[in-house]
């Protein structure tokens, strides 16, 4: 299996404070990884290091074999990594169509000539409609983002990351602020979207252990900046001490998995189209 993203013995300090110590982690093609851990464990710092926003104090982060430490968001997008945010993060006055168009315009390199028409660009329009379709936002295309519901805003944020057609996507708590009932449908949508859009890997930070148990291929638990465990859910949730360290609750019920980006209940033809 090819490795998409690899972090090797990454340390990150804020002054004297070690936010991450010797964190190693890899994401293989087709994997869905959840990062868990108590508040202050270093999850967001890790996401920032993995997305090239922060340069690690020592150690190395490589995407498809090349170093991406501190390369910055634009270059990151160009190389095939996208990111969704923990808090709702939209362009309030831009419509859904425009928001998705921003990402499509970057991907298709349309901004070199300020006189180029946007509305007559078929390729951008198609890309926008394709993503809107996947995320059930078609009927909202001409609404400004501020007029969307909280859940739709969250979806739009993730959808705009998808419009970059990334290989790997990192999402900080995709379901935070969403009601428990909707959480599963959002996760299902996300995984379905990955298949359709050809996304090869997901890293998410997630607090909801039900979701983590059900959808992850691997769980990386952080505690005080160190990797406490890096296990498959079956193994992870058999260890009460581990779970207690992460959330301090009983293990959730393991349900049949619906996550893996490669193997699923999809028909063979759909799969070959996606992967």
């Amino acid at each position: 299996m090819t490795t998409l993203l690899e972090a090797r013995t990454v340390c990150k300090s804020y002054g004297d404070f070690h936010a991450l110590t010797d964190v190693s982690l890899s994401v293989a093609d087709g994997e869905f990884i959840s990062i868990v851990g108590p508040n202050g464990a270093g999850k967001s710092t890790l996401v920032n290091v993995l997305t090239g926003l922060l340069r690690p104090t020592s150690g190395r982060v490589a995407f498809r074999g090349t170093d991406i430490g501190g390369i910055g968001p634009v270059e990151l997008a160009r190389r095939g990594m996208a990111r969704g945010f923990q808090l709702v993060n939209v362009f309030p006055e831009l419509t859904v169509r425009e928001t998705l168009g921003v990402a499509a315009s970057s991907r298709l390199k349309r901004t070199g000539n300020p006189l180029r028409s946007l509305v007559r660009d078929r390729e951008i329009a198609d890309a926008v409609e394709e993503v809107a379709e996947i995320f059930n936002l078609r009927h909202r295309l001409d609404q400004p983002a501020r007029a969307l519901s909280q859940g739709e805003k969250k979806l739009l944020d993730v959808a705009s990351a998808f419009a970059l057609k990334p290989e790997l996507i990192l999402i900080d708590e995709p379901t935070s602020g969403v009601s428990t009932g909707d959480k599963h449908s959002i996760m299902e949508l996300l995984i379905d979207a990955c298949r359709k859009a050809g996304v090869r890997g997901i890293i998410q930070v997630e607090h909801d252990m039900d979701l983590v148990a059900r959808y992850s291929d691997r769980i990386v638990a952080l505690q005080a900046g160190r990797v406490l465990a890096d296990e498959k859910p079956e193994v992870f949730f058999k260890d009460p001490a581990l779970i207690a360290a992460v959330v301090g609750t009983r293990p959730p019920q393991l349900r049949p998995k619906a996550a893996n980006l490669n193997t699923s209940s999809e028909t063979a033809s759909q799969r070959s189209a996606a992967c």
Partner: protein
Amino acid sequence: MSAPHIVESTALARPAAEASRASGLWAFLVIVAAMAALPFFASTYTLTLMVPFFALAIALLGFNLLFGYTGLLSFGHAMFLSIGAYSAAVMTSKLGILSFELILLVSIAASVIIAVPVGFLCVRYTRIFFGMLTLAFGMLFHSVLYKFYGITGGDQGMRVLRPLLFGMEFEGGKTAFLTGPFYYYALGLLTALGLLMWRIVRSPFGLHLQAIRENAQKASYLGVEVTRMRLSAYVISGVYGGIGGAILAITIGLADPEIVYWTQSGNLVFMAVLGGSGAFIGPVVGSLAFVLLQDMVMSVTQYWRFVMGAVLILLVVFFPGGLSGIAGGLFTRFKRGS
């Protein structure tokens, strides 16, 4: 950039929600057509007011690319007016080059030459920091023009001679020139530059500028080159300012440091708010209203600055969408009613 969730916005920069609607273009064309017909029935005096309006409208179209679309409020934009004005002065009265097309080219080149380094320094900052830096550059420019007496004529300024239009010389009085050939020449420029701006704001480039205004950090994760885009917007707006300045200088017949005094930059901000920065047509409406209002109020009272200030306060508090916002609202209500 360490905190991942900062949302940047400029409070007064009302989003250009109209940007994607064709109504902006129609409104622009209607105003232009009305201006083209104006010489057939309006008084000469009214016509002499209109040429400065064309100049300011051009400058303001550029200003609003930065303010309304990119979310950067410049408090020193009169600097570009002065670049165009002094280009015209140097060309006509020092070098004896009278071709207005050449004057425009030199104004554009000079604006780019100044806008690139100044913008390079300023666009790294946003909100009040950007505003203060641009203000500082404007003041710097003012004192340079003021102090270098030998070159610029100091507070006396420099004379701007009547230019040739398409190589043609025009006889007759100054007013006849300004309300005749130059009127249509300037109106033609406004039309062309307005249409050009219409294309710019409706391009993927313009969309990226709006994304920056809305949320620069999110934009950068969607592949928007924030700094480069802001700089491009700054340079384009500078060029529009330079062209406006050259026209303005011809109508005044003089380039002096007053044109870049900080109150003049303030006037540009006032016009933008007056017209409404959220609409494509805002700059045109704002500069027209400003020119008419100033003329009206000044003829009635010497306390015209007081009146203008009061108008500004009322607008910001009650009609943040500016005049074009009010007109747009009435239009929508009218359509719904019928």
